[in-house]
């Protein structure tokens, strides 16, 4: 039988705000356990939650980027459950009035655009981190209360590749909007997959299986592909799919059973009474959108208008930091195409060789811009520029200083060059005649002489141009 996969994704994005969703406890990653916690995060009696303005702004910006309609009233609910990762015994979330509703994003698969519908986007708070040892669990509350947005797609994806493309797009959006660092491997972007199969051409959904906590784009794709084949085999042999939760095992590249879902858990949702409904003014929503950082797709348009081709643009836009670096260098006024070449070429190969990211790259954008401008102005040759670049990697200084230090100053002063040239021509009238008789190599001799006189500093292209011009005058 031929089957069709029906795939929907739930993505949790951890925001990189300064403070938590409902408390002024600080948000930072990778610091000592339980050192970034305040009384609200710990649910001490009598503490009250107050929503974070930046988190709301972020949620509006992402909703807007996903073409969603934005609710101008913010209301939160309590999701009640009893588990050790939850200090209050409930999580504050937006069950009934998500801030964003009904949107889409466009992915490109095999050269074709496909719209994937998005059902909802809501704000909530993260739980505490549990570290499970062989016979005990440890609790670190630093993560408790970090602002999250949850984005729920419609079940409109059909393959692992489509799902991976969708997540990649979400990741690009949240990172370019400065909402999150979007790092899946560090858990700031977490993805759960819902997947079922149905006979191709039919409408009714099959029994769905949930795959939890996939930590990379590649694993999302692999897990879905494995799950499609697992379910196909069961169905082909007349079996039926259990409604269950599975996880992806990286070692075996298979999904393995975590638990069979029995009755749906009743979370007894009710309105969070400690937060009065918040009315967002039209100005507030529009302001959040208007001041929103530039998305990758808008940067792409801008790069094209700067004269960059699709390939270079997509390389620069593969992550926000590289694109930011390009934008900074571009402020120097150097030629954008040359900047792109330098970043994609020399800079990237240096980063690869040293296994570092562009964030750790030491050369200041204005210095790289300055170097490129020196090449453009014919003050140094490409070869000399590369040599200067090598020095800048060791010690980041203004390239002009290296030009002097390394003695690279080219003589580009027309007056100076002309006086050398006429002196030389005056002394060699016979060679002028030779040149005019067709002996081109005479030119090489003249250039050599000029280089000798200037200790190799004459600008080569300007020198030949002036030389020919002067010979023809005689």
């Amino acid at each position, binding site marked *: 039988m031929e089957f069709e996969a029906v795939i929907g994704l739930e993505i949790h994005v951890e925001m990189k*705000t*300064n*403070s938590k969703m409902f408390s*002024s*406890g*600080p*948000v930072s990653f990778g610091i*000592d*356990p*339980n*050192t*970034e*916690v*305040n*009384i609200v995060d*710990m649910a001490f009696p009598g503490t009250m939650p*107050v*929503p*974070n*303005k*930046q*988190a*709301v702004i972020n949620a509006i910006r992402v909703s807007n980027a996903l073409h969603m309609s934005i609710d101008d*009233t913010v209301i939160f609910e309590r999701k009640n459950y*009893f*588990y*050790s990762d939850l200090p209050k015994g409930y999580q504050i979330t937006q069950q009934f009035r998500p801030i964003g509703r009904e949107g889409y994003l466009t992915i490109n698969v095999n050269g074709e655009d496909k719209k994937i519908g998005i059902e909802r986007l809501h704000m909530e708070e993260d739980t505490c981190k*549990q*570290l*499970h*040892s*062989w*016979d*005990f*669990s*440890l*609790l*670190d*509350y630093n993560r408790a209360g970090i602002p999250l947005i949850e984005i729920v797609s419609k079940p409109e994806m059909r393959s692992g590749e489509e799902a991976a493309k969708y997540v990649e797009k979400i990741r690009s959006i949240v990172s370019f909007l400065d909402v999150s660092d979007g790092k899946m491997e560090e858990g700031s972007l977490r993805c759960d997959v819902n997947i079922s199969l149905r006979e191709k051409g039919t409408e009714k959904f099959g029994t769905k299986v949930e795959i939890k906590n996939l930590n990379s784009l590649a694993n999302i794709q692999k897990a879905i592909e494995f799950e499609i084949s697992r379910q196909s085999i069961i169905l082909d042999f007349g079996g039926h799919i259990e409604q269950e939760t599975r996880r992806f095992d990286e070692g075996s590249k298979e999904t393995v059973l975590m638990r069979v879902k029995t009755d749906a858990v009743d979370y007894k949702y*009710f*309105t969070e*009474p400690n937060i*009065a*409904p*918040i*009315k*967002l*003014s039209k100005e*507030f929503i529009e302001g959040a959108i208007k001041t929103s950082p530039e998305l990758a797709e808008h940067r792409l348009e801008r790069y094209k208008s700067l004269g960059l081709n699709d390939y270079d643009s997509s390389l620069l836009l593969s992550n926000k930091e590289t694109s930011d670096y390009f934008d900074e260098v571009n402020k120097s006024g150097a030629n954008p195409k040359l900047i792109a070449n330098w970043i994609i070429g020399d800079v990237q190969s240096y980063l690869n060789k040293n296994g570092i990211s562009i964030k750790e790259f030491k050369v200041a954008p204005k210095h790289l811009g300055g170097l490129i401008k020196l090449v453009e102005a014919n003050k140094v040759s490409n070869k000399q520029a590369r040599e200067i670049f090598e020095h800048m990697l060791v010690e980041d200084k203004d390239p002009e200083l290296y030009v002097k230090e390394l003695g690279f100053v080219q003589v580009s002063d027309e007056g100076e060059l002309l006086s050398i040239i006429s002196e030389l021509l005056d002394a060699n009238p016979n060679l002028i005649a030779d040149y005019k008789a067709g002996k081109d190599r005479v030119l090489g001799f003249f250039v050599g002489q000029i280089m000798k006189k200037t200790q190799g500093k004459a600008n080569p292209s300007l020198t030949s141009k002036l030389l020919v011009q002067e010979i023809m005058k005689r």
Partner: protein
Amino acid sequence: MKTITKEILREAATKLMFKLTEEELDQLVKEFDIIVKQMELIGEIPGVDEVEPMTFPFECAVNYLREDVATKPVDRDEILKNAKDVVDGQIRLPKVVG
């Protein structure tokens, strides 16, 4: 209206992860009997099922949002003072997953 039986109460208690004694169950059945009767009284008001549950006694939308400024966290020793068992600055509890 639904009557609250011992069975229902026992099931609810299990879901909430605690046990009830027979005496407690008898007591609760009696109490729920009264509550259900009172609810029936409310149920007699026409159109009552079309009313949204009320959380706030009056329209009270605000427009206050907290500026995203972090404050100094509480000292770790202080924040973990109530915990029974602390290891390496973390609260230790019996393993919660299988």
